[in-house]
């Protein structure tokens, strides 16, 4: 089959690889219909997560059709149209039963790597390096889905492929940030990053009853998109004073909940960007936590900060003083999508949650390296490139 392969740092190709095979009785094989780029793929592409091998298949946000099921798969049959959570979770361990699915004890076939780096191993993730299980990604004609009854969700007839695709990762990740960040009626919420996940977090905050939701980015097209499709306010950090605006729009209190949807390759206009770039390139820190620092700084006293952006390991100049003295609650997680996807599909069916606008560029899988170039460099207003392997 054809697949998009990581060939080295910033080097991709579309090549033939062996078809996936059933390895467990709870597996399914899915024919991929749509598969999306995600900002977190860029950390793999750029070599910031050093657990990739030449030939790894990228991609973790996808939708497709079941073509084969194992004997222990009960919920799905051949022909089902399913969207699959990007995380591989067993559904039976203590963490899964607490609905903390991305922390699954059994979903990662290489637990030693992340145990050594982080203390304990989270679950696995498709196309997300050998640290998270080494599972082949979705930028391919077919993909193996372990624990298919847990991770694959039948898409209601009234929800299009274009909309349901983002129930795989961006929508549940964003929803989790607002939910576990504690957004409640009347809150002022600030979201750093107007990519797919940031936009979904902002929309989730609106649907959870926040009174004002402010999304922050540097790309005018993304901010306009958020205003148009999500019903939120925007701030451009290159042309506006973020701190002053947030104070003004929250009555001088600061946002109740700050959601960071940027991750380890943050940008900014100040000298700290140069500082972090130099340290990151010299491998003196693995991640640039600029947006996380800002979220902590601008959050109100006693407020909540949720990290949705992916971080790999170590950061520098982390504002523990602000965190401690302002009494903040800081949380983060990879997505517990299994917990939210059925509810999100219902909201998509009712039209409360629209996502199609995120797919600014749709193309055949053969053009995926070009799609990643557009996505990485934000060319032609690209928010998400989506690939269709059957095209």
């Amino acid at each position, binding site marked *: 089959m054809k*697949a998009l*392969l990581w060939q080295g740092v910033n080097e991709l190709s579309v090549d033939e*690889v*062996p078809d*996936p*095979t059933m*390895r*467990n*009785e*709870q597996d399914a094989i899915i024919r991929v219909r749509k598969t999306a780029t995600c900002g977190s793929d860029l950390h793999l592409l750029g070599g910031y997560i050093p*657990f*990739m*091998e*030449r*030939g*790894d*298949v990228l991609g973790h946000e996808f939708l497709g059709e079941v073509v084969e099921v194992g004997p*222990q798969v009960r919920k799905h049959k051949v022909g089902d149209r399913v969207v699959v959570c990007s995380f591989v979770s*067993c*559904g*039976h*361990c*203590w963490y899964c*039963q607490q609905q903390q699915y991305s922390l699954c*004890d*059994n*979903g990662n*076939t*290489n*637990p*030693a*790597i992340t*145990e*050594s780096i982080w*203390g*304990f*191993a989270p679950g696995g993730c498709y196309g997300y390096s*050998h640290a998270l*299980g*080494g*599972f*082949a990604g979705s930028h391919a004609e077919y993909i*193996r889905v*372990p*624990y298919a009854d847990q991770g694959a969700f039948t898409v209601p007839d009234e929800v299009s492929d274009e909309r349901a695709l983002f129930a795989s990762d961006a929508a549940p990740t964003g929803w989790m940030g607002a939910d576990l960040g504690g957004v409640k009626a009347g809150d002022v919420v600030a979201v750093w990053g107007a990519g797919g996940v940031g936009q979904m977090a902002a929309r989730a905050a609106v649907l959870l009853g926040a009174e004002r939701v402010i999304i922050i980015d540097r790309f005018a097209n993304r901010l306009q998109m958020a205003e148009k499709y999500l019903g939120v306010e925007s701030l451009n950090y290159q042309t506006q004073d973020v701190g002053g605006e947030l104070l003004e729009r929250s009555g001088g209190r600061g946002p109740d909940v700050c959601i960071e949807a940027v991750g380890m390759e943050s940008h900014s206009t100040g000298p700290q960007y140069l500082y972090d770039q130099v340290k990151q390139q010299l491998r003196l820190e693995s991640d640039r936590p600029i947006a996380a620092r800002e979220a902590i700084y601008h959050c109100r006293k006693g407020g909540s900060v949720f990290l949705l952006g992916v971080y790999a390991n170590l950061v520098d100049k982390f504002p523990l003083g602000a965190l401690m003295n302002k009494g903040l609650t800081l949380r983060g997680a990879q997505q517990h999508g299994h917990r939210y996807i059925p509810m999100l599909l219902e909201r998509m069916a009712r039209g409360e949650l629209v996502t199609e606008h995120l797919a600014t560029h749709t193309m055949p899988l053969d053009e995926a390296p070009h799609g990643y170039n557009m996505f990485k460099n934000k060319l032609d207003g690209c928010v998400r490139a989506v690939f269709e392997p059957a095209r």
Partner: protein
Amino acid sequence: MRREPRWHVLTVNPARDELTPDSPLPEPLAGLGDAVDVQIRRAAGDRGVELAVRLRDGAQSPVTEGVRRLAGRDPNQAIRAALREAKQLLETGEVLHPDFPPTTQTTVVNKPLQMATRQGRREGRL
């Protein structure tokens, strides 16, 4: 300095009554036979059952242990793998296998990573 073998412990969330302190050892732990001491005990806070395993004898020097580990012949590696697999069998009914056939190629750069992933369940902090 010789180091006494330590307990390798993990918590299993089995179906009710599937694993008690009086249960026979689950596979593949049973295959370790008399080489190990095993404890099965209720976990605090109703979190399931704790499975603890350690080598019965054979305090090792760190040097010996390190050499065996590199060669993939450290018995602690077998204990870790058996514990992880027993947990998966008890919780999910099967051991999750990595994708096959692989799509990757071996290069000089990724050889260390491939060596590490071959030991994926046999190493770590467990």
